[in-house]
């Protein structure tokens, strides 16, 4: 009896986004998970798990945005994950946007840093993601993101 292992791409930019993504690891037990982020130095954080490096980007640098989007698109084509999950920011937005387009189920977990309003890329992702989450109960509500819990 072989159990089906969902293929998950867990992707984020660096710093706090990555620290938060790592705290979700128990959610991926029993999955074939691939971690993707923007610094080679983060590789050892995931131990034996699959790790992919992607170029960093933010909305202040259009060229980097394009490079990042292309690299993420190629990564998605190669790996064809069934689920894409991100904690932000710009690279995470591309991953859920393009992942959704390629047929994956996609999750946006807005950073716990956004305690009083949603992030810009989080708002943009709200219209199409399958699971749209905030980490603050007071930001959840009808027509908005849901609250399940936080990384704390």
């Amino acid at each position, binding site marked *: 009896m072989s159990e089906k292992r969902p293929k998950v791409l867990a992707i984020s930019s660096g710093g*706090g986004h990555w620290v938060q993504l790592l705290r979700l690891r128990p959610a991926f037990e029993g999955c074939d998970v691939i971690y993707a982020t923007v610094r080679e130095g983060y590789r050892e954080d995931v131990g034996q798990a699959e790790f992919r490096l992607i170029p960093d980007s933010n909305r202040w640098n259009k060229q980097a945005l394009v490079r990042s989007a292309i690299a993420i698109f190629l990564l998605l084509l190669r790996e064809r994950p069934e689920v894409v999950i991100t904690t932000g920011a710009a690279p995470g937005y591309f991953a859920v946007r393009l992942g959704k387009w390629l047929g994956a189920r996609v999750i946006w977990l807005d950073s716990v840093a956004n305690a009083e309003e949603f992030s810009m890329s989080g708002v943009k992702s709200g219209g199409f993601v399958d699971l749209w989450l905030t980490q603050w109960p007071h930001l959840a509500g009808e027509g908005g993101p849901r609250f399940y819990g936080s990384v704390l």
Partner: protein
Amino acid sequence: MIFVTVGTDLPFDRMLKVIDAWARENGRRDVFAQIGEGGWEPEFIEFTHFLQPPEYSKRFNAATLIISHAGMGTILSALMYGKPILVMPKRASLGEHRSEHQVATARRMHELGNVNVAFDEAELRVRLDHLGELRPARRIGASASDELVRGLRDFIFSGRA
């Protein structure tokens, strides 16, 4: 050892200038700062622009106090390592960050008892002059809340949102 960090992205000169002046006036040789790229360079305290993750962990472990921008990466690390942390929020209006969220992060994390906060340079100086009063928050485990993990697993395995 006091470990100071401004995050991996934009510099945070306002915070560093206060810490550097305080360290010089008090002869504190036990302060080390990660200052990012392109900002002001401290004159008294030891610093580096960026730390690779293993070196960052080593500095974090050795520290008795963390002073940082109100970034969740550093705050979560302080809570995991059980270190007292003093944060000062970066302001997007001063070019220190891309969005104006750190004041809210700092306020909410302070309400939850997770951090000590200095909202501006004057408050930071007062906090530095009373460092003995800073205590670590309740230590957190290695992963997110059970509710969040369960919700994500439900979605991943059954498609239920």
